[in-house]
């Protein structure tokens, strides 16, 4: 029995657990929905449900529930992803989407460290994702480098290429700095499009991921039940997303995160207090690009190709939109935003064509009316249950 008193206590487990379960159930229903009418019904249902819950301060309760029981609820989130995986174990398409969302979360977490914490806005996220993708395309097809290393090399190469931008980025600020990543984003797309070695406008085929002699493109059979081969990628992407998430949270609540926040708030004050602006910007930019490159390397091996049109400036803008929509600096927010932005147009066929337009309108509305995003970033919690007074 759950007493009413349990529900309103700030450390109640119920709001958190109930929300995780509801989101998992909703995802299953949503991925399962076939007809456009069902999907529209689910979208409207979610909107009505969220509006109703917001009248009861539900987000506040959920976040306080997460703050009091981080381990339990993080475990619940992992369990619910695995539940979704189990429900769709033999269907390719829902699992492909699930893995895509998880890999995008990895990449957006990287951009979040750059923009959300250190304040370095990166308009070339998709380009660094592309560096990873092309790394695995070239290395996996032409060399015998073990694929696990290729993923790491993909991240490393993205970080290395990103380091070429560090000097101009450190010397500039604001609009001048924005130009550098925008220019790089256009440069990268043009470069891969005209480079014959990288397949030109046709792109490159990428072989499937092979870990220790086990080809992930072959579905497993567990206890007589056939699994889709995308299940393998979901597990890998989930592991990467969890690791990136832990890394982000550790960075955020450590003194590194404090320094990064300080740098993004006021560079001059930082410099007077002996916090090295350059060091923290370099660190954040490098970690972010590394995560984006790793995600890109796995993503291209999963989809089997690397194509210039997937790494355009428009795609980078979608990544920035995800971060702003979710709430700048809030990892949970961006996870939710990534899921919405990626799955919704896949399911609602008629908005597929209009998605760039809709996202742009959505971000404009957010910037005009709710500049902190859907789930604004909370004050750091150093102890379970601690609240700013």
């Amino acid at each position: 029995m759950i007493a009413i008193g349990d529900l309103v206590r700030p450390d109640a487990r119920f709001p958190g657990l109930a929300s995780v379960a509801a989101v998992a159930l909703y995802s299953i229903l949503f991925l399962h929905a076939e007809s456009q009418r069902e999907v529209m019904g689910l979208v409207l249902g979610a909107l009505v449900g969220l509006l109703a819950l917001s009248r009861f301060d539900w987000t506040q309760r959920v976040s306080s529930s997460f703050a009091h029981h981080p381990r339990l609820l993080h475990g619940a989130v992992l369990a619910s992803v695995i539940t979704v995986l189990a429900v769709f174990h033999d269907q390719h398409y829902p699992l492909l989407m699930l893995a895509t969302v998880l890999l995008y979360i990895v990449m957006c977490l990287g951009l979040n460290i750059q923009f959300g914490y250190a304040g370095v806005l990166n308009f070339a996220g998709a380009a660094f994702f592309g560096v990873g993708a092309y790394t695995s395309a070239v290395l996996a097809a032409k060399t015998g480098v073990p694929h696990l290393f290729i993923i790491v090399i993909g991240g490393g190469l993205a970080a290395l290429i990103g380091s070429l931008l560090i000097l101009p980025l450190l010397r500039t600020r604001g609009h001048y700095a924005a130009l550098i990543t925008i220019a790089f984003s256009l440069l990268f797309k043009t470069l891969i499009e005209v480079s014959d070695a990288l397949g030109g406008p046709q792109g490159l085929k990428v072989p499937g991921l092979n870990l220790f002699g086990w080809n992930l493109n072959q579905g497993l059979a567990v206890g007589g039940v056939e699994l889709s081969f995308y299940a393998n990628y979901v597990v890998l992407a989930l592991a990467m997303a969890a690791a990136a998430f832990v890394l982000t949270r550790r960075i955020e609540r450590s003194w590194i995160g404090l320094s990064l926040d300080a740098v993004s708030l006021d560079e001059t004050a930082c410099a007077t207090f002996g916090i090295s602006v350059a060091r923290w910007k370099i660190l954040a930019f490098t970690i972010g690009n590394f995560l984006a490159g790793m995600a890109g390397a796995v993503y291209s091996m999963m989809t089997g190709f690397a194509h210039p049109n997937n790494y355009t400036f428009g795609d980078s803008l979608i990544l920035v939109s995800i971060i702003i929509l979710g709430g700048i600096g809030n990892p949970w927010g961006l996870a939710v935003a990534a899921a919405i932005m990626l799955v919704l147009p896949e399911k609602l066929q008629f908005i597929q064509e209009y998605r760039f337009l809709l996202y742009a309108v959505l971000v404009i509305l957010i910037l005009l009316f709710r500049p902190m995003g859907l789930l604004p970033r909370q004050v750091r919690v150093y102890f379970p249950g601690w609240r700013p007074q």
Partner: protein
Amino acid sequence: MDPGLIAQYVANSLMLGIIYAMVAVGFTLFFGVLDVIKFSHGDVLTVGAYTGLATFLGLELAGVAAPWAQLALVALAAMAATAVLGALIGKYFVLPLRGAPALNTLLITLMLGTVLREAIHLFYPQGSNPKRFPRLLPADTVELGSFTLRLDNSILLAVGVAAIVLVHLLITRTRLGLAIRAVAQDAETARTMGINFEFIVLATFAIGSALAALAGVMNGLYYSEITFGIGLLLGVIGFSAAVVGGLGNIYGAILGGFLFAALQTLGAIVLPESAYKDVFAFAAVIVFMAWRPTGLIAEKASERV
């Protein structure tokens, strides 16, 4: 190298340079009055070019056949439409965000540019295909040895130069220009002197956007083709040119525009494949930013702590 070929390259880069400079002047004007980057500028240019095209088709239907009348009406319609569009963007999307961080303005106008671009892409009839832009200028050529001087390009160049000179005169010689310069220098003080701040900002947005529309029409006449995506690249190039020249400085923007065109041409000449010219130009911009972080003619900035 053959002097005729060199002259050809120079003529081409002058032509590109004047279009880039016109876009860059817009960026620098907006930055001057409001310290913001209006990134939808490139897509406003696209809207201008498409308005011009639609006007031309409308004139064809209405039976107006004189090429000069067509040309004048096309340019005027494009400029009027984008002047209004630019002022509206300024009023409803840029001014409300004055108190927010500068990057929010950059983001909102980037997204607004996407909205304009996608709107043309989706709602203009067959918007995803390249559109043929009519040849409204005489196609006569003058042969000078191996160098072919095209009359239409010379006219475009002259029009571009005239437009920039006019804007410059407007800024330096008129009361409106005086007010614009006052707002750019110090908005607060300008207000206390009885200048209508909002009107001046919107007027600046209208002027810059009209200039972009003219650049868009010129771009269409030069290439005889427009697509919904021209604004993105031209916008980024114009922004690069304005930044390389130094934001807020009109001479810097002009210089930056020609410099970028020269870099592209240089890239096309020295690199084995001319397709790499944009890669070369953008790489040069990034390197340049490391060398001169605030552009060739740096804005005068003093930071209060």
